[in-house]
């Protein structure tokens, strides 16, 4: 990285520093001890020009333009590892890192892969660049048929927000079908938005595109407002995070649960349906936006433990110390960029841990993870036997699906 001559104007640093205070808890940035724990825990901190702690020191030295001239902020996968360990609870992920990415984006310092995902999100309502009209295509063949709100025009108990990857990604579509089968088996009255659903926008927001996030949220808000339902469930922890923590400030407020919470509450009804022995050592990967960001650790494990023949083992990093799959904060769309910088993938690191734990199955609960970990398993020694399965898939399998 070339460091440009330092500008003598401290205005940019001061304006940016002041803007951090607008984030909830943002004033705590003043109390940074420069202990460096965040830099150390960051999975890519070793190759960032400005990991969080160093960024704060650059701000204090009024040299923030150096941060926006570098591009390694794009290595941040918004995994909340830094926020989790900060002894003075500075909102490093939601505040500092995200605001820094916003500045880079405005300055036009943005990896081309990320640009494509953002442009796709603007135009098609999803980062994959798929046709909006095909958003419910994954549900074809599910029986009984999945209710699409626009067609059914009736109230439902549960509005299922499927999300981008659950709707379009060929590896995650089967996960959506599995969850639909589980919900059907439990007799849940649910519906989906289909072509009226767009990306939740949370990863775009964490990649610095606040305006795009607001635009997408408004579209989802309008679609949801047209229908009657009691609560929202989703299989996507990023969507869960958006609905729970971000949408209410935009006037879109509904009770929301991740599907693992929804199903864990119905364990008594679910258990008798789980007839098939799985006979496997299973390890569970805590998704950043279910675990660290939203403190949901137990429900996914309760569901896995309810499956006959499942023995749960933990990887060395688990619960609050879980490792990111590398897909958060826009990382899902910057594999090439991150590979160029790091020559390693966070997903491979995680798969090595699953192998070390002796697991037959790496269980996941986020739509980013099945494709990422399956790809990684191809690159990791001794991971040939490791299966990557969403909890919904394992439940459907145990039901004899």
């Amino acid at each position: 990285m070339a460091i440009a001559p330092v500008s003598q104007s401290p205005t940019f640093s001061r304006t940016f520093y002041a803007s951090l205070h607008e984030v909830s808890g943002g004033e705590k940035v003043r109390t940074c001890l420069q202990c460096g724990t965040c830099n150390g825990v960051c999975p890519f901190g070793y190759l960032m020009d400005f990991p969080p702690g160093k960024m704060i020191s650059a701000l204090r030295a009024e040299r923030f333009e150096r941060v926006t001239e570098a591009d390694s902020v794009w290595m941040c996968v918004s995994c909340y590892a830094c926020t989790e360990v900060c002894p003075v609870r500075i909102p490093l992920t939601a505040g500092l890192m995200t605001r820094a990415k916003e500045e880079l984006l405005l300055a036009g310092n943005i990896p081309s892969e990320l640009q494509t995902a953002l442009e796709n999100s603007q135009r098609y309502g999803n980062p994959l660049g798929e046709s909006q009209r095909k958003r419910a295509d994954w549900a074809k063949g599910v029986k009984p048929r999945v209710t699409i709100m626009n067609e059914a025009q009736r109230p439902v108990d549960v509005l299922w927000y499927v999300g981008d990857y659950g709707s379009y990604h060929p590896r995650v579509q089967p996960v959506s079908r599995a969850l639909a089968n589980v919900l059907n088996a439990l007799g849940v009255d649910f519906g989906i938005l289909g072509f009226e659903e767009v990306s939740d926008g949370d990863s775009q927001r964490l990649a610095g595109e606040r305006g795009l996030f607001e635009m997408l949220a408004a579209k989802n808000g309008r679609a949801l407002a047209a229908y009657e339902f009691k609560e929202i469930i989703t299989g996507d922890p990023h969507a869960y995070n958006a609905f729970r923590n971000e949408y209410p400030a935009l006037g879109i407020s509904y009770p929301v649960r991740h599907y693992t919470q929804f199903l864990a509450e119905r364990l008594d009804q679910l258990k008798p349906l789980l007839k098939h022995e799985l006979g496997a050592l299973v390890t569970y990967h805590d998704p950043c936006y279910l675990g660290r960001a939203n403190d949901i650790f137990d429900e996914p494990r309760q569901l896995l433990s309810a499956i006959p023949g499942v023995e749960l083992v933990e990887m060395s990093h688990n619960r609050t110390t879980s490792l990111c799959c590398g897909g958060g904060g826009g990382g899902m769309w910057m594999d090439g960029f991150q590979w160029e910088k790091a020559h390693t993938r966070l997903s491979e690191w995680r798969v090595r841990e699953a192998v070390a734990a002796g697991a037959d199955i790496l269980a996941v609960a986020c739509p980013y993870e099945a494709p990422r970990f399956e790809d990684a398993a191809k690159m990791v020694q001794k991971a040939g036997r490791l299966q990557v399965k969403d909890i919904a898939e394992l439940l459907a399998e145990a039901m004899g699906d």
Partner: protein
Amino acid sequence: MNIVVPVKMVPDLVEELTIDASGTRLDTAWLRRILSEFDDHAIEQAILLKERGGGTVAVVAPDVEGADDVLYAAAAKGADRLIKLTGDFEAGVNNHALARALTAVVTSASPDLVLTGVQAHDDLDGALGPLLAEYLGWPYVGYVARVNAEDGHVVVHKEYPGGLIAELDVQLPAVLGIQAADQPPRYVPVGKIRQAMKTATIEEQTVPLEDVGGAPIVSCMRTPEATARATMLEGTPEDVAARLMNIFRDLGVL
């Protein structure tokens, strides 16, 4: 340098295309339009020239669905004038008619340079650039992948097949068909587009489109028909691999 960038909206290929009942044209009911990729590069090149050497950029788009969004996005990138051509464009206009319509618009703007995409995937009757240059009586250079403004003229890189590149000195005014801008088109944050929607104005200019002469007459339009030339290999991965090896040997590639 004052630059006019005429752009076109073309069918978005992410959506499936359907042919209407007449069997000679696309069904516009299901059509979604997108800025032609090469025109996006033409806008970027114009903005880059403005950023380097000053001047103004006017972007001209026919009035079809999505045109306003494209114009506001151009304003967010730095375009000074946004011109929307009004007339019966939704039904589809051939490039001869569009070039004739643009001639008056370009003449009244009296720019130094017209940049437009070198081609578009809906060009049935030739690219727009050379037609427009002919009507204006200006020189045209196509397949341009770099433009540098010098005093009173521009130096451009024109791409030829086989990786050859010519450096040409072009007198102004001129029309350039842009293959690629010096840099890929930049990202425009939604916030900046929203701002442009509040501050920029779109001028409307009504243009005559009655004369549709020059274009080919489409007698029949069909989707590609599946043929039976492909052989699907089925079986276990080992069987498939073994059969593939035999096929490669038979073809002499192994």
